[in-house]
């Protein structure tokens, strides 16, 4: 085999330029747009008609009705009354509704916190999702707020599920996994099971936020 000192050795100038062009389109060559805070006035731009509910009617896929309540709290324990939660989840069978918008449930919703920093999310409990490695039931969450410069992303799991084998949760340091688990409330009715989950932006119980790696 002939040793080549340059990957372009022996190629015509035309071929070199063609390959450069190919290379340029294959490699990440563009800076991602910088993230900025959503600011305090997003409501009329992103949740114009109030929240974007997950459950919009009675025509629903199979699944247990649940209610997730909680609050978003800052480093001093004060409620954040201008936060926005964006949710994406599978239905009760673990399926993602990626094909077309279902009239009454497609797994996407938006919930702004109220004056007390609180939110109430009525939805279907997601099933075990049909992933390469089965993922324990969870909600994907984006958290936006004034004073939050990044697009914060995390998952919420449920304490009455088998979370110990979840491939994503296993990557979170063990001592902080609890911050991603919603607690089943004793006040649950048979029709609607209630869970509780707080976002702590700072402090000993600071919620884990995630970022993808290669």
């Amino acid at each position, binding site marked *: 085999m002939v040793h080549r000192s340059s990957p372009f050795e022996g190629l015509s100038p035309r071929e070199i330029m063609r390959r450069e062009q190919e290379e340029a389109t294959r490699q990440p060559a563009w800076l*991602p747009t910088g993230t*900025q*805070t959503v600011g305090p006035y997003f409501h009329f*731009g992103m949740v114009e008609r109030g929240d974007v509910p997950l459950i919009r009617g009675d025509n629903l896929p199979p699944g247990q009705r649940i209610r997730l309540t909680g609050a978003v709290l*800052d480093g001093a324990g004060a409620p954040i009354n201008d936060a926005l939660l964006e949710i994406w*989840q599978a239905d009760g069978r673990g399926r993602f509704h990626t*094909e077309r918008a279902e009239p009454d449930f497609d797994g996407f919703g938006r919930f702004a916190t109220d004056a007390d920093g609180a939110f109430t999310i009525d939805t279907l409990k997601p099933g075990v999702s049909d992933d390469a490695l089965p993922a324990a039931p969870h909600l994907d969450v984006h958290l936006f707020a004034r004073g939050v410069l*990044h697009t914060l992303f995390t998952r919420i799991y449920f304490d009455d599920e088998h979370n110990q084998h979840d491939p994503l949760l296993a990557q979170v340091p063990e001592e902080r996994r609890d911050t991603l688990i919603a607690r089943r409330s004793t006040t649950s009715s048979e029709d609607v099971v209630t869970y509780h989950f707080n976002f702590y932006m700072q402090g000993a119980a600071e*919620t884990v936020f*995630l970022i993808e790696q290669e």
Partner: protein
Amino acid sequence: MSSLDFDRDFDPRLNGPVETHQPPQVFDPYVSTRLRGPRNGLIPIHSGLTERTAPVYGFHNIGGEDNDLTVQHEGTPLGQKIIVAGRIRDTHGQPIPHALIELWQANSAGRYIHKRDQHPAPLDPNFTGAGRTFADAHGYYSFTTIRPGAYPWGNHYNAWRPAHIHFSVLGQGFRQRLITQMYFPDDPLLEIDPIYMANPDRRVRDLLIARYDRRFDIPDNALGFRFDMFLGPNGTPLE
């Protein structure tokens, strides 16, 4: 260069290695971050199917007037009419088709219609300041609106936000997601704005500034600005 590729040549500042420096979680000059920015770093993970999928965003019935903020009321809003148009691509340069783009902004006097905005500048009965549209199959989008005014805010003594438009973009997976703000060229308030300056990389900051683009002008009617946005490729890391 053998041939002119419009999107690549549009701005030389775009080219360069991707060593994105997104803003820190806590940026002291922006006071609200002090108690709201997580102090621990983001935990690096390999994501799953949930992060790579997304619904067909159908929750807004997007109509013909939703991307023209100047025709949503009976009269014409006050201020400088502008076109804001551009392209949504990933960091490989691939167009992201049919992204949902939402924007919201203050009116020409620097006042939001939002009930919490107490800035005593006048509201404009003919301007709401919210718009939404889908990018086309090649990632192109366009809005017609009014150039927003600067407005004061409580961050520090005599603090003013430079004129800006808030953008939200939803791409092809839940994590192909961007919340950002668009600024205008030659604004002296930019370099003293803690939100704009929170991004430590000057090149990334520059990309938040739209460029005046004569080709988008409506002659004798509106000025054109180009604002392109680059999201992480779906299913691969953002930085």
